[in-house]
């Protein structure tokens, strides 16, 4: 696939992007994007929801 990006960025020069080289296709899905960059993924404190029986 031809890279259509108009502006090219070197990821090593971006704040916090020091892990994986990510493609534009990855970026279309935010969850895909953050799965590839654990450091930039948010850190939620989660509990299992309490379900009423």
């Amino acid at each position: 696939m031809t890279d259509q990006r108009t502006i090219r960025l070197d990821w090593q020069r971006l704040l916090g992007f020091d892990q994986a080289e990510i493609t534009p296709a990855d970026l279309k899905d935010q969850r895909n994007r953050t799965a590839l960059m654990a450091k930039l993924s948010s850190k939620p404190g989660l509990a299992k929801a309490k379900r009423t029986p």
Partner: protein
Amino acid sequence: MAPATGFLPDAERATALDHRMRQRLVASLAYVARQAGEHLDLNAVRLERALQRISATPQDPLVVGAYYELVVAIELDELDRAQEFFDEILDRATDAAPPFCVLPLPDPATSRDGRRFEQLFNSDADAPFQIAPAPEALASAMATRVHEALTLLDQVSPELAAETRALVRTIVLAACPAPEDQEFVFDGASAFSLWGAILLNVESHESRPEMVSALVHETAHNLLFGLSTDGRLVLNAPDERYDSPLRPDDRPMDGIYHATFVSGRMALALEALANAEATALPAQDREQARALAAESRAAFARGDAVVHRHGRLSPLGEAILDSARSWLKKVVDIS
């Protein structure tokens, strides 16, 4: 100079980490502006003024959030959106540090800020959760509890309180809609891409020890973000998953590392509460703090065992966790 890796709170270090984060943001924004060339309309005078302001003065966490939206828009070749985000950064960059604020989540359906908070706080790929604006009465009661908890922290651990105020500028209060229909309910959240902001659930953290613990927990995530500005703490592949000491789902090693460190910091705060003067905290709260401190120490030990067995840490990551281990060991030896 590399930042100190000590476990104990340090407001001066926190201020230096914020300064370093902003210098890296300025360098990156200047680079992005150069790369954008004629493809974005950037007024050189406004750009230079904004970069000087970001360099010199603490900023609203939404400035960092806008930067991440800018980068993604450029990578997706959405240049109209990139222009909007760059304009927003230039508009928002301030020469007066924004005051500490506790605010209800603006409605993501109608507010740009609300949508950004919602998206960036909720970017954990493994466990998406629901965030919604909180009912006004609950948000107001929670804001009161947050301010009381900070006042209490001032009394029992001034160092931790000062560090918290140096790292956290914005506390966003939100609710989980229809929690009975969700798999996961959030207690709180932090994100590198919202440096200086934390999210808290208005329906959690009811007691004073729980409230203080939640504040210290989220602040500790921000401390790790600041310490890792120039490199990773954890070298494991992001698709590996391990038992979490704090969450019911398996997590990447970066998440385990964070959970372990923040458990140590929660133990530190809760020990201070448990040992508070009777005039500062009722006996019932001190008892709860003692029990929660024991739980946090146990969570630290569980997480540390997973990190020890499976973690591949950078030298920085190792040094930070070693310092936490030393403190926890001292506390266990004394008690």
